């Protein structure tokens, strides 16, 4: 038994309220422990912002498709775009050995996705584009209020 939320929009900043509103309401409606909901919302926002800001930098704007599936023991988010291949390995890790004055603004999105989710998979198929899958497990011994059972 699972519940699925799906949306497809143009990956444009004008669509951000709709995209982030969708993510927010799916997380709120998925009956998740508070920390799991926070993590999924954050990782999904970061991934969507990456697509909106970078996927179509070099070409015509295209779509972003988001699918959120709440299964009994985990939640699976899939974010697809039709931009050029995204290379996760090419994203540098942020350097924390710097003062605030020297730190770059940004560059934290992908880092937070990796930190927040249990599994992160990326696939590129020339016929359909990029597909990023994020998985967060839901601890079995906890109820949805986040308290220990």
């Amino acid at each position: 038994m699972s519940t699925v939320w799906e949306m497809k929009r143009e990956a444009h900043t004008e669509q951000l309220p709709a995209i982030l509103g969708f993510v927010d309401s799916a997380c709120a409606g998925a009956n998740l422990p508070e920390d799991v909901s926070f993590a999924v919302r954050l990782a999904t926002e970061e991934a969507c912002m990456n697509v909106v800001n970078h996927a179509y930098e070099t070409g015509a704007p295209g779509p972003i498709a988001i699918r959120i599936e709440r299964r009994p023991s985990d939640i699976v988010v899939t974010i697809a775009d039709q931009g050029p291949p995204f290379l996760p390995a090419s994203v540098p890790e942020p350097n924390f050995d710097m003062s605030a004055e020297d730190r770059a603004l940004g560059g934290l999105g992908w880092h937070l996705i990796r930190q927040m989710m249990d599994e992160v998979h990326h696939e590129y198929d020339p016929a359909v584009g990029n597909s990023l899958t994020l998985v967060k497990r839901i601890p079995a011994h906890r109820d949805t209020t986040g308290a220990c059972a």
Partner: protein
Amino acid sequence: MSLEISVERRAAATVVRIAGSVDGITADALLSALQEQLDAGHVHLVGDLVEVGYTSSAGLRSLLATVKLARQKGGDFRLAGATPAVHRVLELSGFTTILKMYAEVDDAVASFGS
């Protein structure tokens, strides 16, 4: 996805109280509000995060930009009252070691007086 920002002047610092979610939509408004204070000469700034339930990296960008600008102007931007979830995002992003953070707003304000 709303954000409410209010400002309180105290003797040692200006407290900017932030309430709501700081995300890819609201982060720009937060940055504008904080920079407005710095531009007006209020360079001893405290960000009251007690009522911030969520922040993404867009919010962190606004906070870091404010710290940089405040320090350039001879002041600082210090944070207080982060909830455990927001504190974790700050920690995972290496912000807890480069920003001054306090559990209580009063302590953050007092830190400017010493």
